[in-house]
């Protein structure tokens, strides 16, 4: 994960399906303001929706912190989702397609990872889960980093 400090633009609660809609709206606006193209906006908002739903359904609710990043010419948006839920016992398995503990299709975590440029996850059983993703505006091509 790139070590970039940025300015936190918002911290949104994730407590209900209405909050999920707010998160989507916020991410859409922030991405549009940063100059993301329509496809990248759509990917980022979709990833945010998946991760926010994980926070709500599996983490029992939590929050997302949105940060605007600027490193030289590149601009990006970092979204940090966190909850104090039961945690994920087997992260590798949870990242694979088809794994589900809820009523979904099991695409949430792994699918969200494919939609963003950088992805990191930290989860401790009994303490909670933190998932951070970063998307950069198109510019210099960046390798897809998958760190944990």
């Amino acid at each position: 994960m790139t070590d970039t400090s940025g300015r936190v633009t918002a911290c949104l609660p994730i407590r209900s399906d209405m909050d999920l809609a707010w998160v989507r709206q916020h991410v859409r606006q922030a991405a549009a303001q940063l100059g993301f193209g329509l496809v990248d906006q759509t990917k980022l908002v979709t990833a945010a929706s998946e991760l926010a739903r994980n926070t709500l359904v599996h983490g029992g609710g939590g929050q997302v912190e949105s940060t605007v990043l600027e490193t030289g010419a590149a601009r990006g948006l970092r979204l940090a989702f966190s909850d104090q839920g039961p945690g994920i016992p087997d992260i590798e398995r949870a990242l694979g397609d088809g794994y589900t503990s809820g009523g979904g299709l099991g695409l949430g975590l792994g699918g969200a990872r494919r939609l963003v440029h950088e992805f990191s996850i930290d989860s401790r059983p009994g303490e909670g889960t933190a998932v951070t993703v970063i998307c950069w505006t198109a510019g210099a091509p960046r390798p897809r980093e998958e760190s944990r």
Partner: protein
Amino acid sequence: MSAPIAGSSGTQVPVLKLGTVLLVTLQGDLYDEAAEQLQRNIGEAIAASSVTGVVIDISGVEIVDSFLGRVFAEVAAHAKLLAAQTVVAGMRPAVAITLVELGLTLPGLRTALNAEEAMRLLSPASTPLHHSPARQESP
């Protein structure tokens, strides 16, 4: 005749019955609960009035995540058991690109470029020659 289906969030999803086809037009952001309510209402509407086709127009939908994708797939599955075909119409290109990367390719769900094309697909008069039944649905 039209009967708007009210979502619990206050979102109203217009549902229009055109002949034997139910035209459901989704607009903007749908709350999870409203999507699930819609799913139940479509099933009831099919059973109550001899509907043979359902068109879900999503040209006004900016994002489809795995939750909404699952709702579409379940509506289609319910409709099929009630002897009705479902076509999802008007998906935006950015949404299609995102769904493929997400891994949600929705096999078994028929699609059309727009609602008009979807209505034509479902009309009894449409010639099945151009739309081979073999590739319309997979289990």
